[in-house]
């Protein structure tokens, strides 16, 4: 569901770098994207591509040694220059985050219910009893069985899938306008992953909030996202609608990524991994970061970093050879 209304959150040229004893690590470079109300944006990439760092930067939850530039416009304010008090009002209320590993993301010494109650009472003026009832309702909404009893239990008494459901409940407690889900199913068993994704999907549809879904699993993307953004080595390589990304792929990295998905039903017998390794963020290769592993690389690709180029109105790709590789293909097919 894309629409042309005012974007809910507008990120421009976001760059995040870390000062380390080994040098400057540029984790995110010039990320620019919008998320519209009610829209699901999937951010895809391998480990280390900068996806999680982007999300943390939006909420200003990054470690203290990070240097951030750019702007993140939300509700008329630039979140990067907002005061800490302003950010605290936004966190948990307007923007909420669901983390990857629910076992470590919840405090082991407090009951699940009390942790949900905490986020409710932080942003709303309700008494304990009302907050507790709402917490139980939320747990029911996300499909935790016997929510009344479960609310008094501790995180270690929940199973992995249930814990993540509880995390989701905690995140939607105050009807946030933007949900950021950072690899919500990566730490779960495969059988449970689909269930949790379904819960997340239903919840997002029911509340109408926008969602930034960070994942390295393209299968998850296909079922849930409206738009997709592919990241590699700190940069956005391609962004567009789900259909455009899957069926009108216009970037060699995205292509290679799609090709590498194991296909049980297809005719291919061999796996097609992307050759080589992701680059070091301390010493990235010159020019396009994907060049060393790209099947279509030329001399020019090593000379300069490619800019984002429009393939169609809402579809962009960062590649020197977009025209040759993809537009030609479109014309001929």
């Amino acid at each position, binding site marked *: 569901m894309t629409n042309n209304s005012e974007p809910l959150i507008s990120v421009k040229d976001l760059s995040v770098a870390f000062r*380390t*004893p080994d040098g400057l690590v540029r984790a995110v470079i010039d990320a620019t994207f919008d998320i519209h109300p009610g829209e699901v944006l999937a951010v895809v990439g391998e480990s280390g591509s900068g996806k999680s760092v982007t999300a943390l930067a939006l909420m200003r939850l990054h470690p203290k*040694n990070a240097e951030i530039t750019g702007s993140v416009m939300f509700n008329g304010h630039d979140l990067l220059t907002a005061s800490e008090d302003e950010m605290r009002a936004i966190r948990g209320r307007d923007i909420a985050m669901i983390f990857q590993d629910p076992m470590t993301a919840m405090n082991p010494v407090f009951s699940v219910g009390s942790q949900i109650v905490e986020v409710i009472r932080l942003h709303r003026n309700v008494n304990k009893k009302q907050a507790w009832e709402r917490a139980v309702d939320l747990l029911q909404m996300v499909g935790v069985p016997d929510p009344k009893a479960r609310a008094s239990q501790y995180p270690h008494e929940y199973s992995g899938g249930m814990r993540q459901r509880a995390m989701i409940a905690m995140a939607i407690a105050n009807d946030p306008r933007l949900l950021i889900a950072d690899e919500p199913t990566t730490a779960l068993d495969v059988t449970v992953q689909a269930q949790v994704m379904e819960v997340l999907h239903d919840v997002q549809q029911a509340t109408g909030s926008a969602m930034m879904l960070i994942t390295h699993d393209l299968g998850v993307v296909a079922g849930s996202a409206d738009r997709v953004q592919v990241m590699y080595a700190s940069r956005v390589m391609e962004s567009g609608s789900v259909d455009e990304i899957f069926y009108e792929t216009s970037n060699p990295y995205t292509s290679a990524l799609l090709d590498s998905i194991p296909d049980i039903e297809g005719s291919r017998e061999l796996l097609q991994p992307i050759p080589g390794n*992701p*680059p070091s963020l301390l010493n990235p290769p010159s020019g396009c970061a994907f060049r060393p592993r790209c099947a279509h690389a030329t001399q020019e690709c090593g000379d300069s970093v490619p800019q984002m180029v429009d393939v169609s109105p809402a579809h962009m790709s960062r590649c020197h050879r977009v025209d040759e590789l993809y537009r030609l293909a479109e014309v001929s097919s």
Partner: protein
Amino acid sequence: MAETIEDLVSPHEPPDRIPIFTAGEIEGLNTTPQSFGHLAWSRFRRHKLAIIGAVGLIFIVVMFIIGPSFSPYGFDERNIADRLQGPSFDHWFGTDEIGRDLFVRTAQGGRYSLLIGFLVAVLATFVGTILGAIAGFFGGWIDGIISQMINLVLIVPALIALSVFSKNFGRDAVGLSLVLAVLLWTRIARVVRGLVLSIKEQEFIMAARAAGASNTRIIGRHVLPNVVGAVAVEVTLLLGTAIVLESTLSFLGLGVQPPNASLGTLVADAKGSIESDPVRVLIPGFCIVWIVLCVNFLGDGLRDALDPRSKTERG
């Protein structure tokens, strides 16, 4: 983490966890692959305190060993005429009440303290590592017995138990070292046992077993190398503790006996004239503090260098 208080001899400090992202660690990438030993050494070198500790320790050990050769006086040489002098060009640290040169005596005492400290550290480490590894690895009744032995040793406050046994059995260096070692092996044993317990659960052990490795081989080739790092750290801490305990016992008159001297007995000797000549107390006391500080710095550096999960402090 400990399951009960009984799992702790002295608290095993959790490593400093500092949220810095070094490039290799965020992304799991490195510019060049380095062997563990190489990595550890470079991390150690970066740790300023550890270097200071190492240098300081070497310095004082050297002073103790070759210092007296610069002085014309012997250890037990008495010049009654020169008694109870403060520091001077002749007697760098002054003299005691029967005219013995204090610089030479301090060096001698220092050597003796260090000797006992090392003896204890070696003994306690040896016994503690082996017993701890056995307890952790085999579990069951063996673990039960060893754990109960540890509990027994720790049931009474350390100094009290030490006082009783060192007075009666610790009249000479070997005896004293033995008594101290019997107390101190427990800490290393606890640490090693805990480590082995967690290593045992890990998959590479199962893999080794599946490949047909015998227990001895598994312990020797797979478990012990992973334990070495923590043990090295514990040894340094043990050295410090041993020296403090020995000097405390000697100070109380329960440890090293005349004619031998240790830093502790020197402080006891000087105690009487503390008002008129406080320096005489300060010097051996300061030596002890110096040694223990250096050893602790070293231990800290080792801990940071050898624990791959902890991050070094910047700068």
